[in-house]
């Protein structure tokens, strides 16, 4: 047997570049979004590359990849890429192939062109019920339902600015939703149910206790089993104990659902990056199409479109008009859950008489 190959790392980044990129990397002069989903980049050398961006499902099959490959072979000399938000980009070097490519994509039917500029691009998301063990919600299904409703905004430039929606199916936030214009977050609302007969077998008790951010977990003896007890008053359902200890599941049909967060951003353009803030504390899981979630997101998006200045991100809009006005404009309810009570809570209190009626 040949020596086992390890630690070779990924292929070098330029291996898959089209020739025009090899020649012009670092020399690009400007870009122009010719129409939604179609980018042109022009080099100092005069060289050009067109990129056609298409929505994709992220969770896909090898059949789908093969279809993408076929299109790329036909119009892009076999070159394509994925964006950081799970869209596919077909890289066109020969301008003559641009229109035929767009036709082929339209014919394909599952590769909608868009996701550029002042749009709602693809939703960054996580595993949900398709793979993970800790989710409070599904991921792919919610994304599908929401994107169906917002579809017109994907392939157009109708938003005041770019809107980035992200989804994470539990507080671990693998989707890094904490800095998104709109975040869809799976939340549990019941403390773990403890399998006392197995805690000591399946878990390291001290690590489990240490894992709780609010110190809600104490060692306990239950029916002669070494186990733990959870102080339900201190539990905020983060699921961190379950991560450490499989004998403490949180998932519950009635307890679990969706929270919506708004106004985060990552870019440093104009305003500094912002965390997303709580908009809707809880919406029950409503598979298969999560109608309340979809409706409330639409409500937020429409209030934003109606109220924001051009070039103003959602969080910039909310801060300009004030959060009291945000709740009014979106028709969302403000409840005690919106008031922070975690570590930096006091820094969010309003220490001024400045507010609006």
């Amino acid at each position, binding site marked *: 047997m040949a020596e*086992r*190959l*390890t*630690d*070779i*790392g*990924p*292929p070098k*980044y*330029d*291996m*898959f*570049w089209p020739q025009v990129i090899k020649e012009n990397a*670092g020399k*690009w002069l*400007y*870009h*122009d979004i010719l129409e939604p989903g179609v980018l042109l980049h022009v080099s100092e050398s005069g060289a050009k590359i067109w990129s056609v961006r298409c929505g994709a499902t992220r*969770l*896909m*099959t*090898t*059949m789908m*990849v093969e279809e993408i*490959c076929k299109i790329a072979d036909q119009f892009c000399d076999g*070159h394509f*890429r*994925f964006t950081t938000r799970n869209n*596919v980009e077909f890289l066109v070097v020969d301008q003559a192939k641009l229109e035929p490519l767009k036709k082929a994509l339209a014919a394909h039917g599952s*590769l909608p062109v868009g996701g550029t*500029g*002042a749009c709602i691009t693809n939703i960054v998301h996580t595993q949900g019920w398709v*793979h993970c*063990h*800790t989710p409070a919600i*599904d991921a*792919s*299904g919610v994304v*599908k339902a929401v994107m*169906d409703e917002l*579809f017109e905004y*994907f392939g157009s*430039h109708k938003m005041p600015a*770019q809107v980035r929606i992200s989804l*994470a199916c539990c507080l*671990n*936030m693998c989707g890094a939703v*904490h*800095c998104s214009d709109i975040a869809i977050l799976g939340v549990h609302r019941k403390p773990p149910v403890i399998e006392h007969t197995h805690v000591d077998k399946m878990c390291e008790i001290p690590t489990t206790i240490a*894992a709780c*951010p609010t110190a809600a977990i104490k060692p306990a003896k239950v029916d002669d089993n070494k186990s733990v007890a959870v102080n339900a008053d201190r539990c905020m359902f983060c699921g961190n104990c379950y*991560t450490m200890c499989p004998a403490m599941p949180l*998932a519950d049909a009635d307890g*679990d659902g969706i929270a919506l967060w708004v106004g985060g951003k*990552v*870019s*440093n353009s*104009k305003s500094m*990056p912002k965390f997303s803030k709580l908009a809707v504390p809880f919406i029950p899981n409503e598979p298969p199409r999560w109608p309340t979630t979809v409706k409330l997101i639409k409500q937020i998006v429409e209030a934003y479109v109606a109220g924001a200045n051009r070039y103003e991100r959602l969080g910039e809009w909310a801060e300009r008009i004030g959060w009291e006005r945000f709740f009014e404009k979106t028709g969302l309810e403000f409840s005690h859950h919106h008031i922070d009570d975690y*570590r930096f809570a006091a820094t969010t209190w309003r220490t001024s008489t400045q507010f609006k009626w």
Partner: protein
Amino acid sequence: MAKKHQTPMLDELEKGPWPSFVTDIKRMAETGKDACADLLGQLELSYKDKEGHWKHGGIVGVLGYGGGVIGRYSDVPELFPGVEHFHTVRVNQPAAKYYSTEAIRKIMDIWNRRGSGMLNLHGSTGDMVLLGAFTDELEPIFAELTANGWDLGGSGSALRTPSSCLGKSRCEFACIHSEDICYDLTQSYQDELHRPAWPYKFKFKVDGCPNCCVASLARSDCAIIGTWRDDIRIDAAAVKAYAAGEYAANGGAHGQDCKLDIQKDVVDLCPTQCMAWDGKTLSINNKECTRCMHCINMMPRALRPGVDTGASILVGAKAPILDGAQMGSVIIPFIKMEPPYEEFKEFVEKMWEWWDENGKNRERIGETIQRLGLGTFIAAVDLEPDPRMVKEPRSNPYVFYKEDEVPGGFDRKIEDYRKRHAR
């Protein structure tokens, strides 16, 4: 083995204009892929129960690697034997996720033969996530992958797969070669990536400029973000063309018909108010510019970042677990980033050493810094305090002093004090 399951709820997700993962998986199931049929079946059950149906974790992997595979087992395997094992294989993506059809087909071929045929393009960290393999297949998959030039990504308390924006390859804003940095770090730290050794996970992300298209500032323990120290380059003729409405505003992001009002859209929205426009000339007081990118974004054909480029290094971003979410914060305001990136790597190694020594179990570096103090961290990595590291100086008076900072030190005798002050 797997029968076709009834999936009335999932079928609802075949409707609507956005591409449907259900439709895609269904047709694959029809080719006889058990895993696909059973995945849909189990997912339908989850939709009914409103609870997931995967067991907790499970340690599986490939020889000599501590990560790269996430173990997963169904908790209803008798119903869905095709997904009894459903481990994921994280394949380290090429920087910026360019592919040739030739190369990706090789992976798809392996995955069709040995896995579920389902995958994520891409995982949130950046890997290609091959979803669903049986334990027996893991070692063969790994062998075939490496034979074709691919390797696994990270998982566990290790370095995670670095990722980057597309940077210089197709973006005129790139101030650093984000893809090269990503690749170089990945190759330099293969051992850290594959053999978990730290208090917790550690992520690098590389953005070519402050627009942060790979969201490094929000999602990586160490964000490398391109920036510049000199002046924004202005093409005066192009400025005039914008003023004349010849070019679309914001690179066409609002449609080709949307033109720029330089005063209102650019100058007035500059966060530092360091720009001026007299109807003819646009001038920038670069000393006061914070390089936010706004004006450049608005007028990509007229403005460009400077030429004395490098990176700002922001450390500590992470999701909420345990102590709350963090964004990265400025640790090195500016560092040159030219291969082989030695100065940067020296910093990285000091940083890891400090974290490795001081970090508690499951404590991200950002949390260790919170616990021990930003000042302590700065000193540990041999940097000087700089006001650029903070938004504002402290406002509370609880200032620590070390004994050697105070004349006479801390040791005092109460007798001496009482000589001067009666009780």
